[in-house]
Every structure is written in C-alpha cells, then in structure tokens.
C-alpha cells in the first residue's frame, strides 16, 4: 500500500512536470504573444514593444519557463500578462463557478443514475430496463449545444420561466440559475453513469458469491444492499471519476451558452490571449484535480472491493 502510494505520487509528479513543459511548448508555438493582444488602434507599435519588454516577454523562453517553475515551487502561480492580477485569483474565481456547477450536477446525477442503474440491473432486459435504456441513450445522443439552444429557447425566451444566462444573476440569491446548465449536462452523464451501475449490478447479480449467498438463505433486500451494491459500485465510481474530470475540465459549451465564468472559458481565453501564466496555472490546477480524483476513485474502489487491482 505504501509502495503503491509512493509510486502513484512519483508518477503524478512526473506527469505534472511533463505537463507543464508541454503546455509551455504548446502555447509557445502559437503565433503572437500577450503584448500583441494589447494592440489596438490607439496603441502604437512602439508602445506595444515597450509593453512587451515590461512584461518580460522579450526574454528567451527557457528563462521565462525557469522563472515560472521557480515561482510555482515557492507557491506562487505568477501574475496574469493581460490583467496584471495574480493568477491565483483568476484560478480561484473560475474554479468557484465550475465547482458549483459540477457539484450541483453530480448532486442530481448520482442519485438518479444509481437508482436507475440498480433498477435496470435488477430487471435485466425487462421492459423497464429497455425503456430506461432507450430514453437515456436518446438523451445522450443529443449534443449538449443542441439541448442548450432548445432549452433556452423554450424555457427562457418563450415561457420565461428560467433565467437563460448567469449574467446579472447572483447564484446565492437565485439558485435557479443552475437549473438549465445542470439540465443540459444531465442527459449524457446520467446515461453513462447509470449504464455502468447497471452493468455492475448485473455482473454482481450473476456472480457466484451472490448466488451462493442467496442459497445460504440471505434475503433479497439484504443481498442487494450488502452483497450486490458494493461490487456494482466499482465501475460506477470509476465512471463518476471520469464524469468529474470532464465536468471540471471542460464544459465549455455550457459555460459559453450560459455565460458561466468557469474553468473552460478561462482556459480558452487564456490561450486566445496568450496569457501563459494563466494557462499554465489553470492546467496545473486541473491536472492536480484530475490526479486526485482518480486516486480517490481507486482508493474508494479498493475500499469497496479490496481485491481490485490498484495499479491497473
């Protein structure tokens, strides 16, 4: 277990290191730099050039990267080249919105998907199973931007029941802001998750140990709760980790449509404005989150079913 943790940690450090270099190289490949982004009709090329010098963008790339690494190691994500504010603030602000959205989505998705999955699994190939499968499959086949456009048109513009955008809204005062974005994200996530839970349930139901427990007189309810569910949860937890990853990392479409100032928007903005420290910082935070989520999922699975392989 300790060896495993050490190995995982070493891999994570390596991943983060390689990732940072990669992100730096990738973004350096882009034409133009942050100073160019400031160019307007009112700023002369000379002004832009001296701005570039002020931002330190005239230094060689290696030097800038070294500087950045040094800062990060001392716990400082640097300052944005565009706004001049600390990157940490930008990361915090965007993570906040994304986190709220992710948590709200999962809070709806998990109970629904688990209930549906177990329902489908215990009635494998029955009418209910097929009906739910068809519905979730159909929902998951609609691209989220199509759902979003339609939901907004119907519920906000036509009926006027729900706010169509986060602009001008205060999340604390009006949590209804979350309804449409979560609704858009619901279809696919519920589908994926419930199908994993269903498969897990079916596998567990057919497993020798469940058959044997039943033969030794364990009643059905208890069988489902104590024998089937923990084993069925394993694929579900893995899928949940993937869903968490996706939600945290890139629901750009939803963010764009509902004007949610989240992670994906910040990342794409950062790339578009060549605000390297921001891109680096966001990627770093996201990668750490992904690593932590996956580690957590593995640990949970190992806790649920101790035999399950820790390292692939």
């Amino acid at each position: 277990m300790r060896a495993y943790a050490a190995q995982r940690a070493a891999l994570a450090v390596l991943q983060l290191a390689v990732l940072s270099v990669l992100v730096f190289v990738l973004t350096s490949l882009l034409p133009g730099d942050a100073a160019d982004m400031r160019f307007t009709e009112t700023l002369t090329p000379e002004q832009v050039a001296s701005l570039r010098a002020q931002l330190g963008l005239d230094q060689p790339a290696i030097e800038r990267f070294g500087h950045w690494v040094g800062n990060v190691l001392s716990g400082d994500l640097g300052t944005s080249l565009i706004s001049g504010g600390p990157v940490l603030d930008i990361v915090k602000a965007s993570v906040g919105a994304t986190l709220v959205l992710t948590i709200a989505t999962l809070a709806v998705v998990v109970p629904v998907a688990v209930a549906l999955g177990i329902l489908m699994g215990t009635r494998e190939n029955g009418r209910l199973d097929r009906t739910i499968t068809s519905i979730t499959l159909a929902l998951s086949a609609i691209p989220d931007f199509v759902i979003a456009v339609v939901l907004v048109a119907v519920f906000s513009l036509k009926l006027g029941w729900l706010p169509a955008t986060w602009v001008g809204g205060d999340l604390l005062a009006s949590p209804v802001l979350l309804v449409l974005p979560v609704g858009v994200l619901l279809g696919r996530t519920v589908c994926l998750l419930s199908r994993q839970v269903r498969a897990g349930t079916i596998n567990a139901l057919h497993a020798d140990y469940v058959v044997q427990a039943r033969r030794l007189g364990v009643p059905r309810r208890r069988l489902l709760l104590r024998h089937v569910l923990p084993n069925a949860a394993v694929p579900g937890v893995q899928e949940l980790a993937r869903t968490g990853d996706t939600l945290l990392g890139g629901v750009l479409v939803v963010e764009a449509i509902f004007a949610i100032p989240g992670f994906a928007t910040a990342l794409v903005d950062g790339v578009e404005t060549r605000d390297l420290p921001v891109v680096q910082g966001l990627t770093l935070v996201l990668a750490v989150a992904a690593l932590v989520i996956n580690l957590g999922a593995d640990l949970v699975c190992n806790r649920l079913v101790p035999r399950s392989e820790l390292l692939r």
Partner: protein
Amino acid sequence: MKKPEAGQLAPSEPLVRVRGLAATAGPSILVDQVSFEVWAGQVTALVGASGSGKTTSALALLGEHGDRVVLRGSVEVDGEVVVDDDGPTEADVRGRVVAYMPQHPGSALNPARRIGAGLRELEKLHHPGRDVVPEALRAAQLPGDRKTLRRFPHQFSGGQRQRIALAQALTCRPRVLVLDEPSTGLDSITRLQLVGELRELAGEGLGILLLSHDLDLVRALAHHVVVLDAGQVVASGGSEVLPAGPELRVVHGSGRSAQPLLQATKLSARVRGQEPILREVDLSVLPGACLGVVGRSGSGKTTLARCLAGLHERYAGEITFDGKVLPVLRKRTAEQNRRVQYVWQEVRGSFDERRPVVDQVARTAERLRGFRPLEARDEAVAVLARLGVSAMVAARPPSRLSGGELQRAALARALLAEPDVLICDEITTALDEHGTGLVVELLQELKQQGTALVWISHDLGLVAAVADDLLVIDAGRIAEQGHPATVMSQPSSEVTRRLVRAARVGQDPPPPVPTTSSDTRSNLL
C-alpha cells in the same frame, strides 16, 4: 409455516426424501424419476458421468432449478415439502436446513467482505443470539482468531477458501450439507484431509449429499450410493453398486537400451521477481518410454512441462533433444517443433472460442506436416473418433463441448503432429473411466511405436500403471525418482509416502490418516 423441531423426527426417518423427481427444459429431459434419501449422520452419494443430472437433482433440495427448467415430483426436506408436482413450493429451506457447496467454492466468497462479516451475517440470519461461528470454523479446521476473521477472501489460498466456504455452510447449522464435486483439482493429500473433515461432520449428525465422479472418494465416504445415468437412477445401494474401473491394458516401455530422446540437466525456472519455481531438475526420457511426474498442487509440474515444451522461457540449465540442444519454442526448427508437443492442463483456455474445434485440431497437420486442409480434416476426424469424440461434436465451437470432450480434442491436436515426445499435463481430469481408458489405450499404442511420453497427473494409480519411470516433485525439486512400482511400494521421501498413502482413499485396505500439522496450517500466514 410450521417447522418441526429437529428432535421431533424419529431417527428412522430420512432427512431428505426425494421421490420421482423430474426436471425438464422444454422438450429435453434432464432428470427423470430420480429417488433417493439422505439420513442424519450418513453420507449419500450421487455418482454418474458428467451431465447425468447430479447437480440438477441436488439443487432441487433447495427448490432451485436452472433457467427455464421445470421441476416435478416430490422433495421433502426435514419434514417440509420443497418440491411437489407443481414445482417448487413456498418452503424456504435455504441455509437453515440445506446448505449447498458449489463446485468451485473459492469464487463463492464475496470479495468485498471480510470473512468474519460474512459468517456473522449468516449467524444473525439463521441463529440470532447464538455464537455458532467458532464452532463452524473449528469444524472447517480454520483458526478463529480476530485477525483471520478480518481478512478478505483474496488473502487466503485456494484450499483455505474452500474451507471458508465450508465454514459458511456450517454456520447456517444445516441439517443437510450438499457438496458438489468437492475433490476436483485436489492433490491426493488435500483430498485425504477432506475425507477426514467430512467423516467428522457426518459423525456429528449432519446428513451429507455428495455429488462426485471421484469413485474412490465416494467409496471412502458413502453409506448410500445412487448411480445416475442420463438423468435416471440405474443403481442404488451401498458402495458395492459402484461401477468397477476398467482394467487398463498397460505395456511397459520397450527401448530400454536406446539413447535418451529428451534430457534436461539442472533445470531451474522462475517467474519474474519471484522465488524459483523449479530448482535444478534433471530428467531424461527414452524413446518409447513414459516418464510419470507427480507432486502436490503447486509443486511446479506444469512449469517443468512448459519448460520442456519451450513455452516457459525463463529457465536456466539445459534441455537436449535427440542429442542436440533444444531451444525455446520461438527458436525451434519446424521439425523440432513437430517432434515435441504439449497438451495443456487448462484445455478450455487453449482453444479459440470462435472456430470449430475440428478445424483447430486439423491445423496441426496442415502447419506441421504439410497436409492439405481436407486431408488434415479427415485425419483430425479419425483421431478424434478414436478418442470417442464424434465428428458432429467436434464441428462445434469449443464452448459447446464438455470438459472431457475438449480435453480429448486437445490431445488429438498434439497427436496430429505425430510427435516423438508428447508432454501430457493432467489430461484425464475431466474424463470418466471410459474416456480415460480410450486415452490410455491410444497412448500405449504410440508408445509402442517409439513415442516418448511425459505424463503429469494427480492420479497416482494411473501414473503408476502407465509410467516406466516416476518423478516426484516437491516445491520445485525432485524429491524422488525411480521405477513406479518401487516408488509406490517403498517411498523413500516423506512427500511420496504421504502422497501414496493418501491416494489409497476408498481403496482397501483403508488407509490410516496421518495428517501433519503443516497440511492445515501451511497456507496460513
């Protein structure tokens, strides 16, 4: 539902009474007019070839049946009617009255639960407020300390897991224990321990229903024997109704004087990052001779065979064949490849599920002997027929063949190469007596034509009969080597002595049962 107290039953009444049990699945009849009884403190054995309906009959005791199977007749357990002419009744005898141990009990343990939790759960369900777990553990010969109870199933060895499953069954304090093929895959020593455990349980008043095609085991344990064939009872009574094993016509090796055909010197093998599995094994096989290899489970027999076959590449030492060094399979010439063949222990896994068996068998002749497809197929069909596998059966994909049929097909696949050395790894485990007879007969014939055999088996009697030379392996080393008759009658090493003595289960004279402490404890932490 009224349940008679255990003591109310007159001792003259059977615990289980099955009368005219029939099971049908659509048009096919799985079991017909089966009747038998199980008595408290006694062992009733259901024997019969594979597919004869043993499991189907036994599951009826729980009122269970396979998918789309219809039960009829009458099954009464401990005074409750479990099955009547309308099929299973409402009666619930599971666990509390009848505990069923499936064929591979290892996989019947929930990987997600500590074994203690599993046992306590059953205790609470069936005997709330009573402390029955320690008793069950003792009967299953498991330590009952907290540490053991807090472990997960995967932290036990295969043999231990079997005993945990037994302990679970015993925690229910059933009146009847049903055991489905409990001896498959056990070496003779472990099997002997099982006999002891079961005797003790019967002695405590448990009624046992034993399903097995291991006739020696049945002979050793059963008070009543019911012989099934194609779903019908063909005989019942005491152990005298058991069919006698066919006499094996054994011819011993001819070419005593010739050069050794296959020779291994100082063979050591290891798996990545582990202790060596084989240590400095020497052996040689003469043309037309048979080398028997025996040993406890996990002693390294298969590894030895795979080294010789060139499949296990991490070994030290030298293997020579026909006077020349024999490299690993990848580097063998086509001729060497053809002349040394191997039959897998795990046959099921060695066939491609998607192609008909006969095609896969015939491929050997095509690739190694240059036959054209049609010729090869004819040859394959002929060899399979000699082994008792019809062309119709062989034309199916492997998943639709029985274990025994597939085992013979694997043998045929190797034989089609006309090898000079044939390495057989447990090739009769899934065969009934008739099938074993066919296989032995064919191999004897080849032997006479000069083919050398390496024969690995748990069945000491069989090996002693067919081998010219016997190798006993223990923990990767050669424990003993010599003429089978000598080894069997005057074993010089401790392992051999115990293997030989234990192998006499069910044969007369009944063996004394020497169990050293290491047998039950060796696999514990």
